[in-house]
């Protein structure tokens, strides 16, 4: 464990200590004082954060993002898994096709959907044209709600396959003898699904939802590239984008540290509760 401990101390623990210290100062690089000599000013950073509309909105917006994206990914993933449980020609190829979005770098997903939703891009010129009969020139990234929707669609596109994969491999792992026993007793496929398969993979689904929820909360890459980390204005700014901007663009490192600390405390509690189902190991 020694190399691990050194590395963790060096890369993770020390910055964490720095974060706590900084959050109680009002240091920025432009003050000209070394950060470790910065005077401790107490809690104004924390007080400021809870009255900071932009922070609170970013937090709320990110929660909305998670609340929309994760259930949609789950439902489509479940539907796809049920679709792929049946036999059909070309299943192997189709499975390979639907899985590849997971392997596309996040930033490229952002880029791909950025290109899709351009004014003269395929969504306006092909999709909407085939629906309405004429191309609509919608400026997706100029409208706050539409821009946020685009980011959600990109996330759903990328991560539904993961949901599909988890549910599908779970369904495949359901012991065949249980299914056959139920069938012998006269259960319909629908009953087998709702009464046997889904209850058996319930804990798996819970784990999948938790992991995806925590991951979705971090959303940054697609926001950065599709709306320039939060545009128009701050209307698509997620919490990651906000903290990034405070720290890097505004150079307000103390305030960024305080906000980070608040987030870490909230998330540590949520994560601790959330990974509890993970700990129960069938050993």
């Amino acid at each position, binding site marked *: 464990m020694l*190399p691990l401990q050194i590395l963790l101390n060096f890369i993770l623990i020390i910055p964490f200590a*720095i974060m706590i210290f900084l959050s109680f100062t009002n240091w920025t690089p432009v003050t000209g004082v070394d950060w470790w000599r910065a005077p401790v000013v107490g809690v104004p950073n924390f007080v400021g954060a809870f009255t900071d509309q932009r922070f609170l909105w970013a937090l709320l917006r990110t929660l909305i993002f998670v609340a929309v994206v994760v259930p949609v990914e789950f439902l489509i993933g479940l539907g796809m898994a049920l679709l792929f449980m049946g036999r059909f020609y070309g299943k192997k190829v189709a499975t*390979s096709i639907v899985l590849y979005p997971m392997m596309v770098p996040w930033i*490229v997903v952002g880029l791909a959907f950025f290109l899709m939703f351009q004014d003269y891009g*395929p969504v306006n010129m092909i999709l909407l044209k085939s629906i309405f009969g004429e191309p609509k020139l919608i400026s997706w990234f100029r409208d706050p709600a539409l821009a946020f929707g685009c980011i959600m669609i990109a996330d759903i596109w990328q991560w539904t396959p993961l949901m599909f994969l*988890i549910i599908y*491999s779970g369904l495949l792992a359901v012991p065949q003898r249980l299914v056959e026993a139920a069938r012998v007793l006269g259960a319909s496929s629908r009953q087998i699904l709702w009464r046997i398969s889904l209850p058996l993979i319930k804990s798996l689904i819970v784990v999948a939802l938790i992991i995806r929820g925590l991951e979705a909360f971090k959303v940054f890459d697609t926001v950065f590239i599709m709306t320039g980390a939060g545009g128009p204005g701050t209307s698509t700014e997620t919490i990651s984008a906000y903290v990034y901007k405070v720290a890097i663009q505004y150079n307000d490192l103390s305030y960024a540290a305080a906000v*980070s600390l608040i987030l870490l405390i909230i998330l540590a509690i949520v994560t601790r509760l959330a990974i509890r189902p*993970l700990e129960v190991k069938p050993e």
Partner: protein
Amino acid sequence: MKARQVLGPAVRYILVILVCVWTLAPVVWMISISFKPPTEWYSPNIVPERPILDNYITLFNSTIPIGGTYFMTSITEVITLPLFNSLIIASLSTVFALFIGFLAAYGVSRYRAGGTFALFFTLLTRMLPGATFVAPLMVYYSTLGFIDTYPGLVLLYTAVTLTYAIWILKGFIDEIPPEWEEAAILEGAAPWTVVSRVTLPLVRGGMLASALFIFILNWTEFLFALVISVTQVRTLPVQISLYASAVGRMYGPQAALGLVATIPMVILGYAIQRYLVTGFTFGRVR
């Protein structure tokens, strides 16, 4: 009954095709636009009328105009250095994470070293948003002089991907019966020899799977790279973001660059797919 037998499969095929089209559309469009000359960037054709390779060539040699015009080509920065940086940083970090991760996983699996806390601590670090780490890391790294250096990014990537190395390798080591190692010890082998001659060869599959998985994570990491690499060690994802924001409507080279970054990942992804499928059930269900 008859109608249902025909309709059922038909509906299934339609749905499967819809899912496939939805999945393929964004990347097909990127492929299409990456072969289009500037004059066709705004046309809705999927198949380019005059396909060209210039969008790819200009990534490596910005003096060559795209599609025979000198349209904004001077802004294009070549990607030779970012490509090289991404390869070096992702590979080195993967090797370090595997080395340390293997030792740690071995300790955890065989001796319960560090207890469950160490394991959950590493898991916890993965679940927290990287953005909360940006401010202190910035301060810490500038104090150490690590900003825009290889060691800075490599150490960071090693630390954040260790979790996966430990968790994946622990699973593989757990499956090796300790008796096999004890047998080697009885034969008079030194502890280190046991690990390198008995355990290591047995977990080769796990090493490969975690190596590819961690390489993919490193290759695609964006936030930390954006913060830490300024110019010298700029990685491919950062270069993509610069293209998209600064270059404006350079759709062709943007799409080409996106594909250059994606294709190796998709190939590697399929190589480890079977490990991932088994890994995702977390030993549950049965």
